[in-house]
């Protein structure tokens, strides 16, 4: 039994190697390799059973408990004084000094804002600038500032709604251009792209943790774990009639942190 299984293991291993070298089908290579391993397992297991070795052999366990070492010479223990204690302070100082290199690793600036600037045209990921009529009513697309496609934290969802359905405060009235409204695509909860627009209920939905944002009320969170609205990008039209940003977001984009200032 053991020898036969081992023979199968050898043949299957060689077969797997040959099949792999000839770029044979992946499943064949994998199955032969697995067969080889299983056959070897059977060979070893069967050999162990055939030994009929007892599982009732005994040997003593170590004595447990504290050891009883011979006493140390007096001079090893006696030398404790101010000098000895000073070493503890020295080690503490070394540890503190060692903190500085560690701290310096994280000092790079974080949260520099996004790539949006006043007058930057909204372009698709392919770089095409958009006019207010390019999106059909109910449509949605991802846009970036012109020349900065793929810039970190700068992805924006441009939505086209019926004129006048948005219920924004007076200060945001002119952030909308002919039904075009724009929000940061980066979720304020954990930073996933809020990629799904439920056009029947005017909701943005995040596939990661199911936060739902109410577009008509400025993308306020209405369900799920998010606590903060998606920042809105104020829109304008340039002289050629293309959609442009009025400036960077007024609030920080993406997940919050201790140092976030509002």
């Amino acid at each position: 039994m053991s020898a036969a299984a081992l023979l199968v293991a050898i043949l299957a291993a060689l077969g797997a190697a040959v099949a792999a070298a000839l770029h044979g089908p992946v499943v064949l290579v994998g199955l032969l390799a697995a067969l080889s391993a299983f056959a070897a397992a059977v060979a070893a297991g069967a050999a162990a059973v055939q030994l009929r070795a007892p599982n009732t052999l005994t040997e003593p366990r170590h004595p447990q408990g504290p050891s009883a070492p011979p006493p140390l010479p007096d001079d090893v223990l006696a030398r404790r004084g101010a000098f000895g204690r000073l070493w503890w302070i020295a080690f503490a100082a070394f540890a503190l000094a060692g903190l500085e290199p560690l701290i310096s690793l994280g000092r790079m600036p974080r949260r520099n804002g996004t790539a949006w600037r006043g007058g930057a045209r909204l372009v698709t990921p392919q770089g095409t600038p958009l006019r207010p009529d390019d999106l059909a009513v109910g449509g949605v697309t991802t846009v970036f500032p012109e020349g900065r496609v793929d810039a970190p934290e700068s992805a924006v969802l441009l939505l086209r709604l019926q004129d006048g359905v948005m219920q924004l405060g007076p200060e945001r009235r002119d952030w909308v251009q002919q039904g075009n409204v724009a929000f940061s695509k980066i979720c304020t909860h954990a930073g996933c792209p809020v990629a799904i627009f439920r056009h029947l209920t005017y909701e943005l939905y995040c596939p990661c943790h199911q936060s739902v944002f109410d577009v008509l009320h400025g993308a306020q969170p209405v369900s799920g774990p998010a606590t903060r609205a998606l920042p809105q990008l104020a829109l304008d039209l340039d002289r050629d009639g293309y959609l442009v940003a009025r400036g960077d977001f007024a609030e920080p984009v993406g997940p919050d942190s201790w140092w976030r200032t509002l």
Partner: protein
Amino acid sequence: MILRRVDRFFDERLGSDAWVRYVFAKLYPDHWSFYLGEFALYCFVMLVATGVWLTFVFQPSHAGAFASVIAFTRATPVGYLMRQVHHWSAVAFIAAIVVHLGRVFFTAAFRKPREITWVLGVLLLVTASVTGFTGYSLPDDTLSGTGLRIADAVLLSIPFIGGWAADLLNGGGYPGPLLIPHLYVIHVYFLPVTIGALLALHLGLVFYQKHTQFEPDPAHVVVGRRFWPDYTLRTLAVFFATAGVVTLLGALIEINPVENYGPYHDWLVTNPAAPDWYAAWLDGALRLGPAVEWRIFGHPVPAVFWPGMVLPTLAFLLVVAWPWIDKTITKRDEVGDVLVPPTAAPWRVGVGAALVTAGVVLTLAASDDQQAVGAHVRVTALVTLYRILFPFGSIAVGLIAALLAAELHAFRAGRGAERERVVELVRNAEGGFDAREPHST
């Protein structure tokens, strides 16, 4: 012959033959559940073997990672299998550690003097999980990139030092230019070396302190099998079986097909988006966590901090400290070389079952969106359900498990008493038999 000459070579220089003989004659208690840890060990062997190969074909940079993964996966069957077997070994590794941990927990193998082995084992579970997550993130695909983004948000949420910690990993901003190189060196160097060191200590202690056993031990002896050749063949069989399982899974079931997801951009995402199984409980916790952002000293503490940082830290502390919690509850601190059958301590079964249930509820919550679609219910209804089940379902399952364990124990004890009753049959005057106590004649 060659082995004997090698042995003699070292023996003449180091006097090592006595030790070699001791190792080969050493006894190991035998029970099927003792092989679970070995299954985990051999998964790690498979991970190292396939992982070393993968370092030769993978390009650890944001620009090249995804393309290199696609290239070597498509080029040869070996490349595809290596990646498949590596990923399957990783998920099996962590699964084996969890099941092994459960065995040690439910049989109280963590008691004195093995608390250190327990702590090392828990550290191995944490290290293995982080290694799994960093490796899963290396292809820089849309799904794993989303996971990294969430991890970034969780790091960022830590009060005071969050920004520093997130920048440390990212190398500035998100997605930082150094993120993939950082993950790479963490995944192929820091963490595997840590796992190797923890494993060496963990197994060294098992060797030195000797394994626990189910056999009663009044004479203070190990009851078991000799290492050579008996146990050697058995563990060899476990190794090859492990290799066979992960290879078969790798050959037949596609795991993490990144070519379907595409390369990562911080504005693209898959739907659904859920991580590997061992990280799902954390993702579930993020989904169930309350939508509250408290302010402390005027600074925001983001909602992800509580489920993403505090919950896993508390869970880790609870599990690490379990040997000491257990001795506080049982008020016993004696040497425990003999394992406790799980049913003999129903309260511990209850605690374990409650913890497992809590983990399962959080894991299920990580796919609540897909369940909502499948069951035609609102995802918010499932969130509410899981929020209730997380504490109360866990307690209920714990109580039921404790009661069942107590019943089972009583039932077994009763049957055992019946089986052990020995009687003597004596012919009586009517031609039938009478039962008598054996010593009464």
